């Protein structure tokens, strides 16, 4: 099948019966947009953008909260030959200064010629025009309906299609440049015979934010290229009532839906028996799970809870991906229950080897297979020297193939380093077993003590199991205060406003019990201190920097409650609370 550029794909979709549905907060359909209507709207927005003086090849930042307006603006820009850069919209209008501080760096990196937003946000975002020299206009989508374009822009497969900002922190944003070829290759792989095997009768439902790659590419654009139908629910509607997601699947007989691990956890915890009375999830053939580490116990608990209403464990599709690889990297086969590899925890950390273990308990780590690469794409595991490692040896995951991005905009050194030797260096650690990929941590986060490697995620997980520790608000890292040896530090937030006095001691006890690691220091910080990136990843690097610079004060003792000081921390705190990304923990550029 010939690869299509995004404008060509919009035109082709307009000839199918597919489209998008937009749901109200309670899950009922609020409006529908066939792909023929979408093409019409996109051509009209595209005409408006040309009228506003924007020229093919220029970049525009797209900051639009509602799904329908967002997709119309995004595809309108694409049809006009512009390069859209989707950015997170502000969560609250009363804290816009913090929002502007966080957003301006990404707009600057994108070299956007304009910002497209809504009438409501335009007043606030007008400041970006003064802040960022390349921005000539801040435009409201409601007023962009110009004279309809006669035809979509004649872009080429190797032209940039859009910029993804889901990789990297907000303070140092990295704009991932993807081409039309990257996009077409990746969505074709996702939809195709080694992926979801999408047909005209498939129907999707997504509550993932569209300014995030899994929501935008994984659902919206894959469905567009394939010409089927998907509904969109707002992320907040899901987070407020997780049962709404499942009710929509049941009501619309949806077949495909993706979510991060935490969403399945949330359903296990929050969906009540009364919500399940008339659910029927037997239609759900692919329950994708990505964007953060996939946990075997989460999948098992979800499958058990919802088995009675027709959910099959075989529907789970735990997968791996990253923004620099467009989106998807590996998928397991369809209709297979998650494959779980129980390995010796000691061997995994000390010898970087995944040795099968049947002992269970703390001595054993359970990892979920993310499957195999798509045809035409390669995955290899490299040791520190760069040479490929044998199966069951842990090393950096390297990727090659047509989905690999072109580079970070304006960051040639970083791009060259990331793409050294013709392979994309993912920065993730993993191993292969029977040709399938298991992901077990990040290269840069790895803590080395006495020559042994520890994965922060494992320590964080163990600490999270302690009662009184707020789940997802635990950061582990190694630090070298001039001693040459890593000290292991865990920074965490308590659930209680006033933590129990022995919380730190109980965390140390639990971590040593679960992982064999003696933590040098446990720092308990007030709620809201631990920041997230816009992609929701724990900011281990930033917390470590705060710790090392003394911003996280330790008044006395080795393990004492700290006070939060400093302007930097206060501004971060305000932002962390304000931002919607805070609610979407785990939604990262990695899947």
């Amino acid at each position, binding site marked *: 099948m010939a690869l299509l550029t995004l404008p060509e794909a919009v035109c082709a979709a307009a000839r199918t019966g597919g489209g998008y549905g937009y749901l109200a907060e309670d899950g009922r359909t609020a409006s529908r947009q066939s792909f023929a209507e979408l093409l019409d709207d996109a051509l009209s927005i595209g005409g408006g953008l040309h009228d506003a003086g924007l020229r093919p090849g220029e970049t525009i930042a797209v900051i639009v909260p509602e799904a329908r307006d967002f997709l119309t603006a995004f595809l309108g820009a694409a049809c006009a030959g512009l390069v859209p850069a989707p950015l997170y919209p502000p969560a609250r209008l009363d804290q816009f200064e913090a929002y502007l501080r966080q957003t301006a760096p990404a707009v600057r990196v994108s070299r956007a010629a304009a910002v497209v937003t809504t009438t409501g946000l335009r007043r606030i975002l007008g400041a970006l025009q003064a802040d960022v020299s390349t921005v000539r206009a801040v435009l409201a989508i409601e007023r962009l309906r110009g004279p309809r374009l006669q035809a979509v822009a004649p872009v080429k497969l190797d032209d940039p299609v859009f910029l993804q900002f889901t990789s990297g922190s907000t303070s140092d944003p990295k704009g991932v440049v993807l081409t039309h070829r990257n996009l077409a290759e990746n969505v074709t792989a996702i939809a195709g015979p080694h992926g979801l095997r999408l047909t005209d009768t498939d129907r999707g439902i997504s509550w993932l934010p569209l300014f995030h790659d899994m929501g935008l590419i994984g659902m919206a654009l894959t469905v567009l290229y394939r010409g089927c139908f998907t509904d969109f629910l707002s992320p907040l509607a899901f*987070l*407020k*009532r997780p049962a709404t997601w499942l009710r929509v699947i049941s009501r619309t007989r949806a077949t495909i839906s993706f979510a991060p691990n935490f969403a399945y956890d949330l359903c296990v915890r929050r969906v009540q028996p009364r919500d399940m009375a008339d659910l029927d999830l037997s239609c759900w053939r692919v329950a994708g799970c990505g964007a953060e580490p996939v946990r075997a116990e989460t999948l098992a608990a979800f499958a058990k809870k919802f088995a009675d209403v027709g959910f099959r464990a075989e529907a789970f599709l735990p997968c791996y991906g990253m923004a620099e690889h467009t989106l998807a990297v590996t998928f397991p086969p369809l209709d297979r229950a998650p494959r779980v590899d129980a390995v010796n925890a000691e061997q995994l950390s000390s010898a970087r080897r995944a040795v099968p273990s049947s002992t269970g308990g703390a001595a054993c780590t359970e990892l979920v297979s993310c499957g195999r690469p798509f045809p035409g794409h390669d995955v290899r595991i490299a040791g520190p020297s760069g040479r490929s490692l044998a199966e069951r040896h842990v090393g950096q995951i390297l990727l090659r193939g047509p989905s690999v991005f072109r580079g970070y905009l304006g960051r040639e050194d970083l791009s060259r380093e990331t793409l050294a030797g013709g392979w994309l260096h993912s920065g993730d650690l993993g191993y292969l077993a029977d040709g399938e990929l298991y992901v077990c941590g990040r290269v840069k986060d790895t803590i080395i003590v006495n020559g042994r490697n520890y994965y922060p995620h494992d320590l964080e997980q163990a600490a999270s199991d302690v009662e009184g520790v707020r789940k997802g608000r635990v950061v582990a890292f190694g630090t070298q205060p001039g001693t040459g040896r890593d000290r292991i530090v865990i920074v965490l937030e308590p*659930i209680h*406003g006033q933590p129990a006095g022995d919380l730190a001691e109980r965390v140390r006890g639990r971590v040593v019990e679960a992982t064999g690691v003696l933590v040098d220091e446990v720092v308990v910080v*007030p*709620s809201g201190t631990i920041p997230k990136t816009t992609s929701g990843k724990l900011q281990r690097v930033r917390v470590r920097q705060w710790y090392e610079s003394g911003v996280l004060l330790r008044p006395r003792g080795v393990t004492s409650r700290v006070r939060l000081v400093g302007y930097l921390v206060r501004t971060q705190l305000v932002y962390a609370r304000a931002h919607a990304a*805070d*609610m979407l*923990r785990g939604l990262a550029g990695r899947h």
Partner: protein
Amino acid sequence: MTPPDADTVGRDVLTVLRRVCRRPVEPAANSTLAADLGFDSLQTLEFVAELEDRFGIIVPIDQVPRIQTVGEAVNCVRSLLAENVHP
């Protein structure tokens, strides 16, 4: 400031709050959900959903970020109930 449990609405809000908290708390009207009670944003949304069920109201999602304290939650419920009585 009026204590949160000065009337039935206030008392019921506190009951819901304690259930979502899953531990004993004695909040005042100006207790903040995040800093004083240790709620993260997911718990705040759970709290709002429980309030909706208890009082038969709908709290529009764009109003949720305005609920930062116990008193603001009580006021929000009161005003939504008043709207229902006088449509």
